[in-house]
């Protein structure tokens, strides 16, 4: 067929599209504030089915009867919800075929973090699902995963394409009524990630999602739902960064993990949201509810490296419902300047022969406060449950604080519980020893701190471990007292 004038016109249109990117991503926003109407607008903007709108409205009504919790060891000015924009989405664009077409602004932020996308793509085969503000703008490796029946997509897409799975599992691990922030999230969540691993499938690549706050004053309410069907395995990586902001930004995410019989989920997080400046101005409020449920012989492993946010309130937990199920929590939390972190885990032993391990390493510098808060609960029927907890705190200065709140509730006498805790100050002797060998003070601190956190860093997937080490170094820059 001859190349007609119409074809040419069409080509020109397509071409304009291909080069039509702007560096500042435009956003579609709704007015500030939170009312039932806000919830309805979000749901309708996203073209959601009726059942999801109902889910949101129920959550909103529960939320209205709740007050913001204040038991955590953090102090901050409570955000005014009427001053927050609850939805913003990049304007629709042409679907991206490859990562090379991703907005260069995003790539720039990634590169500053030392993550080269291309490199990751080539070296590690990581499938990356960007969450830019609230709507996913690019999804890769989808096809390859599709061949195995693995579903890895944005939450919105999952609602459209796999409503039965979403409907079945949404809110089953973290009910809307769970806590103030979870209720808020359930009412107004904008987007997030969805992942389903079919029976007996070992997901061949690490799945990762990068979250990023882009719009000033826009709250982020991410929703993640990850289901590992019987006998499957998945390793999921989540990392986040936010550009510098003067205003506090509210981030209230909910992550739900479901590990069915004999399944294993490894969930790793590197969190470096903007922590505020040296004087404690600005920074992200990070109020996250993360929880997973293990059926028979299932295993969930949480690994987190928390260096960012002005305020962190986060307790990735495991409900060990099935017999022989295993829960693990490995955490490094770094606070500097005026940061405050209250983080830990809950291990709820319900099934028989359930095992849990908790390794928490807090590092505090500047005038920050770093708390470990954990609960190990052994239910009546949890025969032969075992827990090992180790909570260490490392102090970099005389002006920071480390706090440990380990709670244990045991209703079954056959349980075996061990708890170890240490608090130490970074040693002058250690620093001098390094310096005498030619390792300068900043480098020495980085070496000592990374050594201290090694048990946890070792649990991270290889490429994340390197990034996390860099992050610890950057986070503690200038912390030498």
């Amino acid at each position, binding site marked *: 067929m001859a190349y007609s004038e119409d074809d040419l016109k069409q080509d020109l249109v397509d071409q304009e599209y291909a080069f039509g990117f702007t560096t500042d991503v435009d956003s579609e926003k709704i007015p500030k504030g939170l009312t039932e109407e806000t919830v309805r607008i979000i749901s309708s903007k996203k073209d959601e089915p009726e059942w999801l709108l109902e889910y949101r409205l129920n959550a909103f009504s529960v939320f209205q009867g709740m007050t913001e919790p204040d038991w955590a060891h953090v102090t901050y000015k409570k955000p005014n919800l009427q001053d927050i924009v609850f939805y913003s989405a990049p304007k629709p664009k042409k679907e991206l075929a490859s990562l090379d077409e991703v907005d260069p602004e995003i790539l720039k932020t990634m590169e500053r973090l030392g993550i080269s996308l291309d490199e990751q793509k080539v070296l590690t085969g990581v499938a990356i699902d960007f969450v830019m503000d609230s709507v996913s703008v690019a999804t890769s490796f989808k096809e390859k995963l599709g061949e195995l029946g693995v579903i890895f997509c944005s939450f919105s897409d999952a609602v459209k394409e796999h409503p039965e799975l979403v409907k079945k599992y949404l809110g089953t691990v973290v009910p809307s009524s769970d806590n103030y922030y979870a209720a808020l999230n359930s009412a107004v969540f904008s987007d997030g990630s969805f992942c389903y691993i079919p029976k007996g499938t070992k997901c061949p690549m690490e799945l990762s999602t990068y979250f990023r706050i882009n719009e000033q004053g826009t709250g982020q309410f991410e929703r993640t739902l990850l289901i590992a069907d019987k006998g499957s395995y998945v390793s999921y990586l989540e990392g986040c960064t936010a550009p510098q902001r003067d205003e506090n930004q509210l981030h209230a995410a909910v992550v739900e993990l479901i590990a069915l019989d004999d399944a294993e989920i490894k969930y790793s997080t590197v969190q470096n949201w903007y922590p505020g400046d040296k004087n404690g101005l600005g920074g992200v409020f990070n109020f996250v509810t993360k929880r997973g449920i293990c059926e028979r012989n299932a295993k969930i492993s949480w690994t987190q490296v928390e260096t960012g946010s002005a305020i962190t309130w986060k307790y990735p937990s495991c409900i060990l419902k099935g017999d022989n199920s295993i829960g693990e929590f490995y955490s490094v939390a770094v606070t500097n300047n005026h940061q405050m972190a209250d983080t830990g885990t809950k291990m709820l032993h319900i099934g028989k022969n359930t095992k849990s391990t908790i390794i928490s390493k807090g590092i505090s510098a500047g005038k920050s406060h770093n708390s470990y808060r954990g609960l190990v609960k052994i239910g009546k029927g949890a025969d032969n449950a075992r827990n090992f907890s180790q909570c260490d705190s490392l102090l970099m200065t005389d002006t920071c604080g480390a706090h440990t709140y380990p709670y244990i509730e045991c209703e079954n006498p056959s349980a075996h519980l061990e708890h170890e805790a240490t608090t130490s100050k970074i*040693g*002058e*002797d*250690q620093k*001098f*020893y*390094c*310096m*005498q*060998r*030619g*390792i*300068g*003070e900043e*480098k020495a601190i980085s*070496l*000592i701190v*990374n*050594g*201290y*956190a*090694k*048990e946890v860093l070792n649990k991270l997937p290889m490429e994340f471990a390197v990034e996390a080490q860099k992050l610890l170094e950057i986070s503690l820059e200038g912390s030498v007292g």
Partner: protein
Amino acid sequence: MLQVKNLHASVGDKEILKGLNIEVNAGEIHAIMGPNGSGKSTLSAVLAGRDEYEVTAGEVVYLGKELLELNPEERSWEGIFLAFQYPVEIPGVSNINFLKTAINERRKYFKQDPIAAKDFLKMVKEKSALVELSDKLKNRSVNVGFSGGEKKRNEIFQMAMLEPKLSILDETDSGLDIDALKIVAHGVNTLKSKDNATIVITHYQRLLDYIIPDFVHVLYDGRIIKTGGKELALELEEKGYDWLIKEEA
């Protein structure tokens, strides 16, 4: 190589070194002996640049440079090595990683590229053999779970790896049994050359049976009160320090 002139140093209000003089040339081994509290460890700490010690007077010239103006890592890069009396534990940092970092930081200072993995491993193999340090210890966290003797052998291993010009061994013999002492001494003797120098700080003459000093200095109350050859150490072993202290008084 090293000229220490009229060195005064204090911790808090307490003056510990009170006008110490010593000169060390390349190719020499100097032993510094003296009773407890005479200032031996203070001298090593001041030379290495520990900041709890305040130098109130005097001068230290090392290879033509004002040593006291350099920070501890610069002194290390310029070739000063201190074998610690109490080697420090660094959990989670492998011995090998620690040394590689140290070597590369120095190479960076001299604007050299990081050492090639192959060369580094070859060096580790060669130098660890010198003090019979097992592979197990090389990969363990720095000094964590090491016995007293292993820690001291590890110090000499690090010394061998860093190839210093001036080594200061601070009570390296303390806590060593005779076999470990021989191994350590063998390491030190093997590393000796006409271009480097060693200061051995010790309580006992015993170590000097294996590391033969060119000079023996007696440190008492912050000053060197007597200097002699290796026979002075034997004399001290036999007669103690009292006769010298009386002589001084």
